[in-house]
């Protein structure tokens, strides 16, 4: 006789009246495979935990964004935001799709060059650019986005010494009606600082001002804020033309488009409230096209979208190390990936899903990482089914920032795997070993 399916016995207290989000057993979403490859197979081949990227998803998302903008605006150019994910394999896919490079440090600049990106196709952002970095950028004819007056004067001095011209844009901060307003980067629009900077640059003989750049913030859920930013940059472009009879070549609206992740403290899931590429594109294109800039002088629109292009394409597969009960009786799970690999878990309620069928009974659960530190919490509270120790879970939407901000703390960083368009898997960053860590260490006592 065939035996019945077993389920772990559970008793839970019925909470009364108090509004809570849990209690109803709902259908649990399962992620059993990624691009048709079973989750267990990745662990078998590459160990646990393991980051998995889908080339298919990257290209689909990129083309979705591209379509949204190109159908609304005549000149659009994406620049891949290196800081979001600078794994060679990932950058190469974006460059293959036609994206330029957007870098914020000398290291990222070198990395872009090493991937064969033409220096003229690099946008160089950020508040930290040393004299050497600037010389490298000038030599490669990159677009240098100036952040502050000290940098402007350093650049004037450097170009003089090198007796070379630099192509520059300025970073502008402005009030686009969002909170908090980022005013620490760039020159302010409202108080006239940006206009002063433009005037100074137009007079500098070795600087060629070609664009205006802003980056209004991160994870912006209101598309209309981009519209406000775009019209303010358009105003500056028109003012520059009036005074100097010269049309700037581009407007760069930076990044900050939200991904579908859910921010902590948000009431509704991000997948429902986050604007689509079409919403952003509509707001931005409308603002520029309806400005006073004549059609033939419309600037190229640059976008440095990072998060929204890569978050969905990255997964982290992890295994359950232990099922525990806290002293309050609360269910807790310990998994083999923690905040060391999931920097974004500090601000998102990341989606964690079982990789195989589970029973209906759900419990309010806390998911801990494997570190011996109290802050290592992947999810404070998630309504979660019963999972056996040793089973795999899949954490979705981890493609942005995690593989650049991860920490090498008490253990090796894991394999990163790419599934190509044919469904073949490739290690794109090898799991670290003792040698990776020790090769830069020197021990004077030995």
């Amino acid at each position, binding site marked *: 006789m065939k*035996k*019945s*399916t*077993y*389920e*772990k*016995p*559970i*008793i*839970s*207290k*019925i909470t*009364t009246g108090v509004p809570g989000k849990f209690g109803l057993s709902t259908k649990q979403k399962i992620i059993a495979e990624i691009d048709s490859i079973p989750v267990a197979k990745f662990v078998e081949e590459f160990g646990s935990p393991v980051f998995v990227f889908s080339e298919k998803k990257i290209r689909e998302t990129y083309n979705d964004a591209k379509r949204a903008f190109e159908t609304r605006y005549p000149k659009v150019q994406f620049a891949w935001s290196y800081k979001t994910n600078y794994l060679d394999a990932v950058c190469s896919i974006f460059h293959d799709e036609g994206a330029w490079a957007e870098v914020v440090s000398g290291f990222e600049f070198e990395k872009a060059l090493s991937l064969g990106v033409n220096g003229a196709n690099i946008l160089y952002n950020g508040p930290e650019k040393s004299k050497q970095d600037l010389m490298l950028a000038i030599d490669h004819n990159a677009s240098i986005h100036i952040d502050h007056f000290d940098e402007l004067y350093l650049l004037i001095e450097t170009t003089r010494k090198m007796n070379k011209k630099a192509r520059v844009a300025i970073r502008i901060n402005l009030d686009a009606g969002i909170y908090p307003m980022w005013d620490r980067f760039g020159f302010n629009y409202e108080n006239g600082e940006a206009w002063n900077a433009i005037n100074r640059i137009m007079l500098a003989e070795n600087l060629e001002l070609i664009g205006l750049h802003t980056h209004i913030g991160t994870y912006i859920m209101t598309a209309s804020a981009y519209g406000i930013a775009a019209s303010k940059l358009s105003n500056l472009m028109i003012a520059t033309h009036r005074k100097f009879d010269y049309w700037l070549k581009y407007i760069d609206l930076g990044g900050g488009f939200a991904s579908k992740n859910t921010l902590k403290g948000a009431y509704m899931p991000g997948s429902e409230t986050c604007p689509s590429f079409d919403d952003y594109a509509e707001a931005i294109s409308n603002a520029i096209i309806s400005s006073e800039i004549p059609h033939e002088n419309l600037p190229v629109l640059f976008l440095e979208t990072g998060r929204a292009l890569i978050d969905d394409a990255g997964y982290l597969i992890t295994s359950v190390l232990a*099922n525990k*009960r806290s002293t309050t*009786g609360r269910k807790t799970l310990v998994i083999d990936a923690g905040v060391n690999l999931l920097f974004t878990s500090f601000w998102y309620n990341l989606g964690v899903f079982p990789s195989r069928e589970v*029973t209906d*009974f759900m419990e309010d659960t806390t998911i801990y990482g494997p570190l011996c530190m109290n802050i290592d919490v992947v999810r404070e509270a998630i309504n979660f089914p019963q999972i*056996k120790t040793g089973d795999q879970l899949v954490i979705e939407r981890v493609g942005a920032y995690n593989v650049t901000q991860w920490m090498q703390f008490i253990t090796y960083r894991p394999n990163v795997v790419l599934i190509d368009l044919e469904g073949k898997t490739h290690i794109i960053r090898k799991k670290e070993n003792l040698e990776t860590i020790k090769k830069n260490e020197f021990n004077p006592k030995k």
Partner: protein
Amino acid sequence: MQISEEIKISDNGFVFNSRTGESFSLNPMGLEMIKMIAIDNGFDEIRESILEKYDVDELAFEKDFYEFLAMLKHHQLTQQGNPLDFV
């Protein structure tokens, strides 16, 4: 381990503690086990019966069973002794 007298268990999995006024819900397996515990079945009897009926191995059952007992104790559904009385 004995279930306290004042605990009422309904067939739909609703558990009511008439002394404290608290109520609890059981999943079907929890209901089956608590009923066996309530009629004074020991660990061995319950294990035998569950292993015979369900597709589960001995160790997995043991782990779950003791966790379940701990939860019953946590929710004060069992007759409580002194926790440091190791007998």
